[in-house]
């Protein structure tokens, strides 16, 4: 009797709707959802950088600060990974004093607001372009001693052009050669960025998250659904388009109800679940 009871329970679990659950980093807490954490009071901002120890590169977070006359400012930043200085001096409003400085999106991390030394300036300049979702659209760029790198390159372009003009007395030739000199400097920083991509791309939060999600769909889901159909009525964020990419070769069902019984991918409490098709009735010889 007991053995039959256990067998029935196991059978029930196997035939139940609830099958698999996968934790995907809790989908991460997108910026703005976590509470801002106050990191400094009455902080001097002029000429200072923000040092943050953040475990994973590529995480979006906000920096808030409030001026003494209670004006609030906010900037969106991307973590570099590990302990790194963030050059807030590039923002014209990062000046004078702040009555309070907050971080949102990182939780409790070690931070400080301090004067950068030469090593910090070099670290800021050589921090590679992060590999994030917006990289394909626009780059964040570099700063050197708080000056945008492209502004410095424009200066190099101008100076080189002037030098060449003094020799050749031809504007078109001087502009061309001056540009090639400045562009060569850009090429060097681009190579450093590309080396950074190769070194860190697999370790940034967005790449890890996307990679894990793709693995789950391409592996677990594709294996379970094999020979069947699937549907994804509830997926509207990045998991939705990853699902449709990884399962593009598996028949999709737009009508999950009725006679068409697909496997369903659903989200509950920010976790992905794969639900099997509904039972089609008892098979002879089995009991509940």
């Amino acid at each position, binding site marked *: 009797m007991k053995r039959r009871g256990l067998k029935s329970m196991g059978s029930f679990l196997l035939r139940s709707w609830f099958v698999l659950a996968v934790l995907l980093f809790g989908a991460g807490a997108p910026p703005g959802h976590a509470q801002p954490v106050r990191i400094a009071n009455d902080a001097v901002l002029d000429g200072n950088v923000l040092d943050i120890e953040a475990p994973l590169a590529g995480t979006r977070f906000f920096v808030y600060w409030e001026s003494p006359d209670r004006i609030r400012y906010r900037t969106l930043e991307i973590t570099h990974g590990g302990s790194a200085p963030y050059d807030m001096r590039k923002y014209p409003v990062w000046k004078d004093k702040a009555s309070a400085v907050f971080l949102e999106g990182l939780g409790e991390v070690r931070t400080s607001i301090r004067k950068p030394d030469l090593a910090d300036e070099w670290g800021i300049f050589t921090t590679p372009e992060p590999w994030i979702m917006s990289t394909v659209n626009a780059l964040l760029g570099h700063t050197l001693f708080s000056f945008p*790198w492209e502004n410095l390159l424009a200066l190099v372009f101008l100076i080189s052009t002037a030098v060449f003009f003094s020799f050749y007395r031809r504007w078109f030739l001087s502009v061309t050669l001056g540009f090639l000199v400045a562009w060569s400097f850009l*090429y060097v920083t681009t190579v450093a960025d590309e080396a950074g991509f190769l070194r860190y791309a697999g370790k940034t939060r967005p790449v890890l998250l996307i990679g894990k999600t793709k693995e789950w769909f391409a592996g677990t889901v594709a294996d379970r659904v094999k020979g069947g159909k699937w549907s994804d009525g509830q997926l509207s964020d990045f998991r939705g388009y990853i699902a449709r990419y990884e399962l593009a070769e598996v*028949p999709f069902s737009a009508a999950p109800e009725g006679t068409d019984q697909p496997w369903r991918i659903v989200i509950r409490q920010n976790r992905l679940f794969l639900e099997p098709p509904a039972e089609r009735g008892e098979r002879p010889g089995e009991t509940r």
Partner: protein
Amino acid sequence: MTASFAALIAQVFLWFGLGWPLSRQEPSPGIRGEAFTLSVLAGGGIGTTAIFLLLLAGVSLKMSVGVLSAAAAAGVFLCFRNRGAVMPRTPSFSLKWYEAVLLLILAGKILFILAVLWQTPLYFEDAMTHWSGRARSLFGGVNWSFDSASPVFLGFTGAKHYPLGIPVWRASAAVIAGGWDDFIARADGLVFYGLVVATVWFAVMRFSGRRWLAAAGAFVVATPPLQAIHAVAGYGDIAVEAFFTGSVAALLGRKWLLAGLLAAGTAWMKNDGLVIAVPPLIAAAGLLLGSGSGPFRALGKEDGRKMLLFLSGLSLLAPWLIFKAIHGLGVTPGGQSLSWHPEAWRILLDTVLLGPTHSIFWIFVIAVLLTCGGAYLRDRQGTALLVLLVLSVAFSLFVFTCTDAFLFLQNQMTIHRTMLQLYGVAVIVCFYGITLKLDRTIPLAAKESGTGKTRKRGKA
């Protein structure tokens, strides 16, 4: 991954086989190796369109690729048999130091691209939806239909109004590879990157005869930061750049049919081509007609034939446009209305001209146009190229400043990718102006030809 890489190479030769017989119909003096790059582009445009038509006719994807492979092999065989064709080859010459440096730079870029393709998954949203998502649906066959009543009409992911050039390109590569993976999903970006760089080198070499200038042009177009990113991103913008650059190079070589084909290719790869490439190319082609010193002078019957050839090539786009019209597919995600945004110019200045994405590239373009402006206007080809670039940039900026697409300038989601599509053309136009000035103002004792031989040339 090895099979995928082999499939990538095989597909390049498949496209070459389809495009070369056509490219040979319009022989023109110049550098023979140029025929390879233009043939691959032309073959890619023709091949993907042919596969699209075969799919519409109910032929399977595998069969369609098989038919085209046979056609490509037959085409190449006939070329060799009928006219004793010689394979286009790059001229032999000893490498200059700056060319060796350029090759090292390009080798580094290609290694980076291959490393990213091998080590990282397909990552960006549009690549997983509009481009490779639809390509994979097409390849799989089960989530694809050409019936507008089907829930999987033109795939079940991505925008349906996006043209099918890229999805067909990638799906056919997956057929050759025997399966899909994230390498196939993006590797054509490497092909387009190589084609852009090579086309610019050949074009600048053709009109300048100066190897150092050609090397400089290739260096400039190969190294913008966004260029290598888009070679691995899986988007369609670099494809538009490749076809646009190829079309301009074909026009400079007076290959009218090829130029029209490649112009069609810009819009077959992405809708942007319809606005930023096709109209300026038609204008440039028109300005190149006539035999007088200025545009539209001494027009003859031959000019009518040339324009007819160009438009015939452009008609490659007709099947897709007809299909879109029948199924009511537009060219934008939603209704786009005109709306003037004066604040757009400040954003353009800060992000495009002075921003990190393009760095000083567009400042250089403006500086060259200003210093060489008069030279362009005194030369018929220069005038055509100047008008082409100005129109392309103007149309691009119009969309972002005077329509609802301003949002994509404001959030920088699309503006930089659109400007990337103009990189190759901008470099060709700039270096053409530089060549005009060099020929005119600096006495030329000798000019290196593509074969490495020098010939005396008097002061321009």
